[in-house]
């Protein structure tokens, strides 16, 4: 019970924040509630990280720490069951950082501030709930909680073709959810229909390998696509450019920063972990798709003219790398995948924050209309360069370590098929450099030609604060990756062991091998 | 003694006249009349079968009387609605009443 409460604080805090927001009347009260709440979340996640590391140091080798359960709906074997491993710990940390900085990034958001933050908080509750639970049903529920507010957040507070984008995003993600639900029920009944708990399914009820192989081959694609839609898996990524382009700043941050990670996390934790035979058998199909994502996203980004589109395609490329690494199925690459989730979450949030701030001033995101912003808003411009460098994998910032871990991990698969894909993925780092530098050169350097832009001001304190926090996180991760990497490996290793125990070692169906 | 067939034929004619009227008439009033016609054909059937097949019982008659009562109540309500509709739209043709559609 103590553990349940300890982890559920991540859900209780947003709930309390919702109550507080409901009671708040003035904008300062709203801001107060948000700041207090998101700070509490951040502190709690840091505390959790330290406690997690202390427990591990003390020799607790359980797969999930702080594991506890509460019966919820016994007739369907649904429990509210919580537990965290290395992966969830860092994901919680990431979410807390993004929510915290997102609060500051939307400090001056004008119409309907209170309602905006209500949905924002609800969304973050879903995200936190998803990462702490290990019961498939509860995970699915929190997943849905996180998806729905997005529709309103984009539809009401967005810009551009916001109704279209919001509808598209929601419909595509809901379509994914439908697949996902089928997959989850398939796993549930395939594993005997007496528990929804991930660990129990994997280890106790005869093991996930006990799920009939033919069934696995049906549920695996469903589950993987279900989560993959959110993880921007080619060709289900098209909600991402439109959705991000229309979303308000902090929503883009939260969406690209955290919500897209739900996809990668789910693919790994549910699709791969619970359906290991099918993952071994059919992984190659998705590997090709993700390989396409990586290269394709990067090339598409080269010719976009809208700042947010560029970043959205870059996200497709980087999130593709996450799924790509997961499907490489070894400890190193999957550690890299989680590192990439962290790194991409932080730097994309940073990017979207900066784009939002620039857009808020110039009222255009068209690359062709912007130039010479370095002189006009030096702070934002410098941060933009840093974000860009992080994106193209500058050592010392987070992108580098994630990419290197992924590439080294992917290269551990010695066959030609995986090698070719790995090398193709490596080529994306060059293309990334092309579009990032083109962008930086175009909008920041040079002379400012638009007279209207010359009068613009640099970042305000709240914007500075949120950007600096993110940069510190990016640099911190990039400079001292050892501990994060160890925490992640700790969570990844058991899952990979489980997958590699599978009877189906080689993808027999792969024509390329 | 009238043969049961004749009675049933009359009832069937009434029934199909009612159905036809219900499906084709555009006037609400005519539709109501068609419904009455169908109800009455059913009543007739009740009465006929009671008389011919179960002469000792009375359930069929009771049922017919209930139906007549319900039909009366229903007509009252329907005509009230029609009058209201007429007051608003000056028309009681069903294909003109599209306000609630979609």
């Amino acid at each position, binding site marked *: 019970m103590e553990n349940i409460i300890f982890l559920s604080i991540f859900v209780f805090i947003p709930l309390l924040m919702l109550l507080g927001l409901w009671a708040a009347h003035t904008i300062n009260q709203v801001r107060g509630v948000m700041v207090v709440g998101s700070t509490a979340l951040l502190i709690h996640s840091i505390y959790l990280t330290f406690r997690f590391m202390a427990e591990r140091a003390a020799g607790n080798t359980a797969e999930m720490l702080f594991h506890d359960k509460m019966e919820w709906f016994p007739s369907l074997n649904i429990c509210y069951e919580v537990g965290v491993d290395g992966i969830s710990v860092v994901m919680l940390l990431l979410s807390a950082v993004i929510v915290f900085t997102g609060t500051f990034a939307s400090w001056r958001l004008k119409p309907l501030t209170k309602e905006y933050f209500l949905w924002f908080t609800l969304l973050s509750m879903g995200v936190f709930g998803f990462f702490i639970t290990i019961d498939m049903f509860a995970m699915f529920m929190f997943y849905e909680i996180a998806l729905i507010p997005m529709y309103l957040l984009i539809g009401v507070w967005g810009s551009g073709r916001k109704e279209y984008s919001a509808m598209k995003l929601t419909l595509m993600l809901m379509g994914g959810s439908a697949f996902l639900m089928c997959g989850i029920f398939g796993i549930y009944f395939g594993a005997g229909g007496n528990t929804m708990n991930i660990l129990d399914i994997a280890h106790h009820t005869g093991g996930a390998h006990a799920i009939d192989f033919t069934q696995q081959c049906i549920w695996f694609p469903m589950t993987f696509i279900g989560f993959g839609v959110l993880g921007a898996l080619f060709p289900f990524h098209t909600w991402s450019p439109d959705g991000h382009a229309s979303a308000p700043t902090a929503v883009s941050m939260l969406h690209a920063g955290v919500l897209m990670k739900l996809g990668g996390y789910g693919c790994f934790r549910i699709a791969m972990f619970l359906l290991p035979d099918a993952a071994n058998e059919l992984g190659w199909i998705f590997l090709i798709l993700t390989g396409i994502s990586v290269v394709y996203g990067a090339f598409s980004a080269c010719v976009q003219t809208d700042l947010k589109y560029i970043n959205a395609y870059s996200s497709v490329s980087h999130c593709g790398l996450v799924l790509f690494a997961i499907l490489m199925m070894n400890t190193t690459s999957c550690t890299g995948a989680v590192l990439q989730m962290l790194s991409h979450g932080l730097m994309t949030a940073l990017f979207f924050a900066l784009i939002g701030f620039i857009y808020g001033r110039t009222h255009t995101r068209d690359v062709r209309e912007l130039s010479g912003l370095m002189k006009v808003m030096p702070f934002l411009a410098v941060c933009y360069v840093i974000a860009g460098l992080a994106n193209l994998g500058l*050592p010392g910032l987070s992108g580098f370590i994630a990419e290197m871990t992924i590439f080294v991990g992917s290269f551990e698969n010695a066959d030609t098929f995986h090698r070719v894909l790995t090398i193709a993925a*490596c080529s994306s*780092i060059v293309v990334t450099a092309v579009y990032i530098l083109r962008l930086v050169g175009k909008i920041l350097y040079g002379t400012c030609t638009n007279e209207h832009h010359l009068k613009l001001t640099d970042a305000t304190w709240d914007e500075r604060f949120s950007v600096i926090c993110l940069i510190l996180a990016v640099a911190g991760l990039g400079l001292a990756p050892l501990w994060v990497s160890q925490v992640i490996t700790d969570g990844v290793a058991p899952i990979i062991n489980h997958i590699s125990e599978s009877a189906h070692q080689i993808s027999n169906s792969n024509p390329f091998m | 003694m009238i043969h049961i067939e004749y009675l049933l034929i009359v009832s069937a004619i009434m029934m199909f006249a009612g159905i036809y009227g219900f499906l084709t008439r555009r006037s609400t009033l005519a539709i109501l009349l068609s419904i009455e016609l169908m109800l009455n054909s059913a009543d007739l059937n009740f009465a006929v079968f009671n008389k011919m097949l179960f002469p000792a019982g009375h359930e069929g008659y009771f049922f017919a009387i209930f139906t007549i009562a319900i039909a009366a109540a229903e007509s009252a309500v329907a005509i009230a609605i029609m009058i209201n509709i007429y007051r608003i739209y000056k028309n009681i043709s069903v294909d003109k009443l599209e306000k609630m559609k*979609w």
Partner: protein
Amino acid sequence: MEYTLLILLLPFLSFLFLGLCGKWLSHKVAGIVGTLSLGAVAVLSYMTAFQYFTAERVNGVFATLVPYNITWLPLGNLNFDLGILLDPISVMMLIVISTVSLMVHIYSFGYMHGERGFQRYYAYLSLFTMSMLGLVVATNIFQMYLFWELVGVSSYLLIGFYYTAPAAIAASKKAFIVTRFADMFFLVGILIFGYYTGSYSFSFAPEIQYASDATHFISVDAAKAVAAGGFILPTALVLMFIGGAGKSAMFPLHIWLPDAMEGPTPVSALIHAATMVVAGVFQIARLFPMWINYAPDALSIVVWVGVLTAFYAAAVACVQSDIKRVLAFSTISQIAFMMVALGVCTEFTTGHHHVGSLGYMSSMFHLFTHAMFKALLFLGAGCIIHAVHSNEMSSMGGLRKYMPITHWTFLIACLAIAGIPPFSGFFSKDEILTACMAYSPVVGWIMTGVAAMTAFYMFRLYYGIFWGKENKELYAHHTPHEAPLTMTLPLVFLALVTLGAGFIPFGHFVSADGMSYDIHLDPTIAITSVVVAITSIALATYIYKGEKQPVAEKMRAAMPRLHRWAYKRFYMDEVYQFVTHRVIFAHISKPIAWFDRHIVDGFFDFLAWGANALGFQIRGLQNGSVQRYAFTFLVGILIVVLLLIL
């Protein structure tokens, strides 16, 4: 030697300090902070070198020291370590980098005086110095790659220092992307290398000696690599060489270096002449035991790429009119000399009778001397540009009277690069030519020819700047004057080094297997090269010394096409421009973007449209007309009844 950590830490701290607080510092304070930290680094480097080279030799070689090596990032079975490795070449590089960097720091005081972004400039310089030092002391190939990327970025930032100038922006972008493209191969090479050898480390334990046995030098699981096929290690090494070729501007990846001259001149001196561009050479030298033991045949690739580059760059340098471009092409050509020298090695052991390993030593020697005199040339060019505010040779001429110090130091550097004794370039170039001749007379003679071209274009440059016709119009308007002391001091210092460096017994410190080795000049080759150099200089004097240059005009008129092609650098840039814009952007990126927006996205929009249209179609059934419902109901009943009956 724990204090060596400070060599990396000081510039990093100075970068952070200047980068974060620069805004609130005055120019003077920022410059002093940067220069002082670099001064400390230089002192520490000299201390390290002194201590290292005076230490007792073990088995005739200097011990390889690893004062630090920590795991930075675990990568499965392999580790990504960061540490410091001291061996003769890394210590030599420490001296080169810290000396040139210190000179550039001092020089920039004068050159960048009053520039906007002075603090930022010093911050970038510190960042660059830190990265470059980290690169040379790398204990493993991944650390090298990390700092390799960092020097790339600092080079990008410094080239684009004048960020309002379109040319600078384009140049910085180009430099980064071209080297990044090469780095991709480097990365793949590292991946292959790490996978098959089971380690990234150059030397896995401090107590392992720098011995002639390469398996001790790099922890190679040779069995694994050989089992995977004999071509694995050569492939990995060649891929890494492509990375090195990108950084060291080898043909055809050289195109970024001439454009990189858009950066401030001291930066060109530091990054694009003395230090960063030799990273590729250093990389091969570092992995040299691997090359010689596992991929001796692949070394011929290095040789021929080097030869081609040396010749190409020298040819282009002969006709350029921008003095910095001439120097840039001369740098490319000289680095190619170093590459060739490494490539011509055929054996690992040194000694009086082993000319096969002479190339290694001579390459490192040339790296050392070249860094000094090329930095001197660039800094001199900086003084000249500072004085006449132009890069074009046409706006110069006759400057020797106005700028005596610059003139004399420049002349010394020119003599050095031309290979005239007793200047340092003579000694190192002579060793290279000896090694080349021993490898193959063809290579030897081509390189001698390139050396002759070097002497020619350098003196063409020299006469163009300091002799010839004065640009009266410009000088009347603005009389050129000698640069301030902060700028001339580094010139003098570097000139002294250039004078003396040739007499350093370099073979005692650096050689392929670490054994002490006496340099002795091969008289035939020495005399040939000196004669050739003097002839070329005489030719240049004849053509370019006078106020009027009839011979030059005539030559240009006689071969207009050749001249134009050479001037346009044989249209290499245009080829790249075509490939990137016409092929990649227009025929890969655009179609992909179109495909994404119209086909993939269109498909989902189509799905949504389809659902919508279907809804429209079937909503007729729910039209609210009770009569229609009743009719459907009736028909349904009839059908059911009929079915039941039948």
